[in-house]
């Protein structure tokens, strides 16, 4: 087998940037992620076993326990040994006191991620917002609306809604200009927020009286932290004359819909009444993530006069005695003259053999490391005929 070394001009490193769109639709304690409903199984009501205060909207990390009864779940475990390895859910104290060496430490599946919505009343304690203070202030050069304390309000005390989006949903960052939040009452759009200026400001667009045209009112109702995956909503003006009990406790007087009430029934987080219905309100959040795909492109050359011999046994005529008459010594290998190569050259005439040509068919290319270990194989959809006069370049692409 011949091996060739890639020259610097044969290898290219690229990065493909993709923007997968993500959508969440929230209604009646259900979150529908990417328009995918919840499938019921034979043993459980949700085949992916992902449950919480709200139904749906989860990503399962491994998706192993599909439609399994509770006594047949797949679960991970490690054995306590000298490496002192355990799951993160096992505290150091529990690791030291609850498990003997050689004992099994169990985990559980599914491991899930979902959006989380937190509602903060005025002057309510908000450690998550405080933790974002530095990040918020660092984006003031994009918009003053980011500032932790400014004319747009003091984020330490004002009423607000925090939407936390795990990075598994968006990848490296949320794409600027792709965020859209829509508020519906009985299926009618009453307001939309967009970051149309791509500076993180969520500005309100409203449907005009014809019900079709979207006009911008210009009010800033919140900001998006693109890299960190947070949406902070502070807009507290009424969007409609409709009233519903958006406040917690539920005994409170019904109020008009505001942006800080966005996603009320889709909350797995704190600050909202769980297990409540808002029969008239529904919410949609759409954005695009940013995903990078590193790509390695390699050009493999089959030059003229090269790669025209094969070690494949079928390269020799059927019935040839190869092994018995070849001469192998310390300094030489003399191939048997009784093992002629099959002539596969095509003749232009009927019932006539063509002149002999050394022809091979290339059907795969192996990639080797410096130590000649085979590390990858590229297969061709169809074998390529290689005559001595042919000169080919194969383009190999590896995504990872």
């Amino acid at each position, binding site marked *: 087998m011949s091996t060739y070394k890639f020259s610097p001009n044969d290898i290219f490193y690229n990065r493909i940037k993709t923007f997968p769109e993500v959508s969440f639709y929230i209604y009646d304690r259900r979150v529908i992620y990417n328009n995918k409903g919840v*499938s019921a*199984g*034979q043993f459980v009501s949700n*085949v*992916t076993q992902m449950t919480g205060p709200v139904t749906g909207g989860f990503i399962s990390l491994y*998706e*192993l326990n*599909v*439609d*399994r009864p509770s006594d*047949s*779940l*797949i*679960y*991970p*475990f*490690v*054995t306590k040994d000298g*490496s002192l*390895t355990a799951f993160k859910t096992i505290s150091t104290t529990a690791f030291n006191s609850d498990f003997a060496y050689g004992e099994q430490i169990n985990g559980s599946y599914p491991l899930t991620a979902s959006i989380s919505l937190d509602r903060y009343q005025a002057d309510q304690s908000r450690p998550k917002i405080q933790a974002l203070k530095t990040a918020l202030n660092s984006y003031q050069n994009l918009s003053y609306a980011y500032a932790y304390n400014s004319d747009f309000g003091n984020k330490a005390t004002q009423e607000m809604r925090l939407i936390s989006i795990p990075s598994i949903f968006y990848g490296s960052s949320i794409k600027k200009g792709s965020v859209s939040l829509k508020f519906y009452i009985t299926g009618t759009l009453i307001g939309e927020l967009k970051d149309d200026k791509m500076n993180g400001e969520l500005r309100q667009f409203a449907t005009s009286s014809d019900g079709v045209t979207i006009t911008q009112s210009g009010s800033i109702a919140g900001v998006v932290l693109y890299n960190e995956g947070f949406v902070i909503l502070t807009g507290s003006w009424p969007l409609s004359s409709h009233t519903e009990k958006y406040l917690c406790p539920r005994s409170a007087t019904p109020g008009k819909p505001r942006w800080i009430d966005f996603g009320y029934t889709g909350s797995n987080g704190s600050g909202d009444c769980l297990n409540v219905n808002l029969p008239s309100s529904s919410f949609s959040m759409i954005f695009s993530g940013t995903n990078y795909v590193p790509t390695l492109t390699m050009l493999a050359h089959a030059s003229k006069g090269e790669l025209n011999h094969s070690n494949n046994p079928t390269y020799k005529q059927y019935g040839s005695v190869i092994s018995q008459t070849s001469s192998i010594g310390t300094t030489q290998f003399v191939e048997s003259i009784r093992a002629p190569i099959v002539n596969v050259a095509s003749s232009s005439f009927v019932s006539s053999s063509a002149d002999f040509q050394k022809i091979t068919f290339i059907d795969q290319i192996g990639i080797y490391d410096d130590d000649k270990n085979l590390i990858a194989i590229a297969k061709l959809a169809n074998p390529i005929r290689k005559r001595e006069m042919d000169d080919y370049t194969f383009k190999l692409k590896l995504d990872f």
Partner: protein
Amino acid sequence: MATTYKTFLNNDITSTKTLLHESIPLTGALVSGTYGTYPSGSNIKNYAHGMFQSVYDYPYLSSSANHIFDITCGYAPNSPLSSSDSNISVQNAKKINIYNQMAQVLMGYDATGSILRFDEDGNITDGGTKIDSGYFLNFSRLLSKDEIKKGSFTMKIGTGSWASPMSTANVAGDGRVTIADTNAQNDYRVNSPAGEYGILSMSVGYDTEGPVTPKVGLIFYQAGIIFLSSSVFFRTSQGGVLQSNADTDMTMAGNNNITASFTGSLIQDAANNLRHRIDNISFNNTTELNSTIHFCRINHNDFNYSSNPTYLSQSKIVVKNNTQDAPVSYITTVGLYSADNELLAVAKLSEALKKDPTNEMTVRVRLDY
């Protein structure tokens, strides 16, 4: 961006390996009868080529479905089941090819280039009993991961009548036999080109010499493949290993014995027959987690100053009250750089560590892959 770098010495970097396992239970209901009426099922996939049957954990047209395993069967060219008469044996060539292909991959070749047949005890050089026909269960990589954990595999098979395979006590106990790789963690073979393998034995059954746990197949741990001998389904008087109260075989559809099933039916029908008798399967898988641990040793006079812009205000260190105080910094991040000072990885601390000339510390950075 770091302004000062510290070079790792040889004893600052070490590698470790952690074994993570998963417990995989597969109930008989999963492989037969839950998603349709046996032998059909929306989680059972048959192919036009007819070489094997795939079992999923949910209807396979759903994006939620996971592939569990494939079932196929085969026999050796010199097996009594093999026949050149295609009228006698259905898919004869395919069944021989499957056996040969699996034997090539899992057992390899002898010195003459001939394919080695599956050996009952794995001792190839001693000759011994060969397993010339049986079922192959190829578990998906999703479940078997790096390898099946040695000594963890069990498979229960109902031995009752074809109509009620689980309910009739055809053997002692609950009427089921357990096939397991008992003690394989201490006793396994390494002479396979596909990695390590163990011997499957059956818990209930007798050979002609008395009560033993007969060898009934092989389990290839890294390949995730089970080879189950057809002798499991024969009673001892027929040359099998099944101790049957009523002196009956484990019959297949149409009350045929396993020989008739292997020769007279399609591979997918033979697979259906096995699924019908599976009570449950369970095993543990293994994933190797390789880690490199970097010990970042910070001496008393290291990293007591920061180049962070917020460290200074009006040319004074913010975190110092008096000019006579020792310099203080707070370590939040450890950057790992290449020899060319390219940033390769960043390790973040959950909370900042106070560093001043009075203390030394070692930050342990673990990189899993």
